């Protein structure tokens, strides 16, 4: 009898719960951003609007309905993802250690086109930073969103994010960061298609 080995060693690079929560999160985040753009258009903070054609909801009320429905998907799925990461120890195995020095070295290698993705079971430091960053941005979006939705009920969170108007800007900037991550992420997946396979079938 041998002791059960971690999933990764048995060949599943991405266990099924990672794949499911990843794709649900992708769907949730895309719908939130598209409906959010429509909401932004009702009263832009900056001197531009998003083209209506890439927004969701048709008008403000429709966009708000999407936003406040999909928030449940994004929030609950995100909690499941975070909890399972902590409980299974995956967060520590895949994202730890993450040192600035290693990040700088890998980032330099990436710019020169020398960064290796050979071992799909191990993230390089740039990947680690990008994925942890995306999770933190999503957490920031949820927290600033809570202040916008319920500013009276979360006074400490409101104060932390610079009041209602501060939270609006944090919510917007975190969205920009997330969209930037999305663009880089999709580009990298296109360059290393094997990673798409691991996120669909697991290995």
């Amino acid at each position: 009898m041998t002791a059960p080995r971690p999933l990764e060693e048995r060949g599943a690079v991405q266990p099924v719960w990672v794949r499911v929560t990843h794709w649900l999160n992708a769907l949730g985040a895309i719908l939130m951003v598209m409906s959010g753009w429509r909401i932004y258009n009702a009263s832009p903070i900056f001197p531009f609007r998003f083209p209506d054609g890439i927004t969701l909801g048709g008008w403000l009320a429709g966009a708000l309905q999407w936003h406040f429905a999909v928030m449940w998907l994004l929030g609950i799925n995100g909690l499941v993802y975070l909890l399972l990461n902590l409980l299974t120890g995956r967060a520590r195995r895949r994202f730890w250690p993450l040192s600035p020095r290693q990040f700088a070295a890998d980032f330099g290698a990436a710019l020169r086109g020398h960064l290796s993705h050979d071992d799909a079971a191990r993230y390089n430091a740039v990947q680690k930073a990008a994925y942890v960053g995306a999770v933190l941005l999503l957490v920031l979006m949820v927290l600033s969103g809570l202040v916008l939705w319920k500013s009276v009920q979360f006074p400490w969170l409101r104060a932390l994010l610079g009041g209602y108007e501060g939270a609006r800007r944090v919510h917007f900037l975190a969205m920009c960061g997330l969209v930037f991550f999305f663009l880089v992420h999709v580009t990298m997946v296109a360059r290393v298609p094997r990673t798409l396979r691991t996120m669909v079938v697991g290995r």
Partner: protein
Amino acid sequence: MTKDDPGRMRTALTRRDRGELLKDAGRLLPAPARRRFLRGGVTLGGLAALTGCNVTDTQTAEALLMAVSRLNDRVQAWLFDPHRLAPTYPESMITRPFPFNAYYGIEKVPSVDASSFRLRVGGRVRERRSWTLGELAVLPQQEQVTRHICVEGWSAIGKWGGVPFRHFLNLVGADLSAKYVGFKCADDYYESIDMPTALHAQTLLALTYDGRTLPPMYGFPMKLRMPTKLGYKNPKHIVEVFVTNDYPGGYWEDQGYNWFGGS
């Protein structure tokens, strides 16, 4: 829109709000079509491309979104802490000029004759009677400088004064266990709120703005001011208050905006 030019920002804000609201109002289709307001958006938003949905799916999606909005009403009622107060601000932070906002342009603001005006109070109350403005003016008054938050996202700080609505409801012997307080307005707007919000310490039957009689553009003769609710939940030009257990809906809510609509 720069911080060092607040005057210009506010003018732009007012103009934009008006434009946006008129645009929204212009999109209001005849009633049967209005209920399907999401269809265009789904196609425009490219969701059809994502899911390959057709018209039937779209109607299902709309019904589902409406159901979630109702669920969110219940969640929000549960989250609402009746003792939690909205932040207040120093008078120096009041937004000047405070933006005008309605579902119509400023030239359509109703004119109400103060001397003949009567506020009707009905429904589940002990004293179904009408009130003159003079009678309301001698009730205990309270002032607040609070942030008005619009469902569109912008916000502005203003100063309102008037009768604490909780006091007024007690005075008329309202059934405080009823679910809703409804409002009818001189501009054909209508609105309804939950009883816990009606009884919140900062909910005012506002008769003044910035120390003066409430001007027509801000809702003369009275508006219900609730810093815990979004702007559209704060009815202006109120002519009737009623207490009821039958869901009265609201002008924007009946078109798809969330009913709880607040913090």
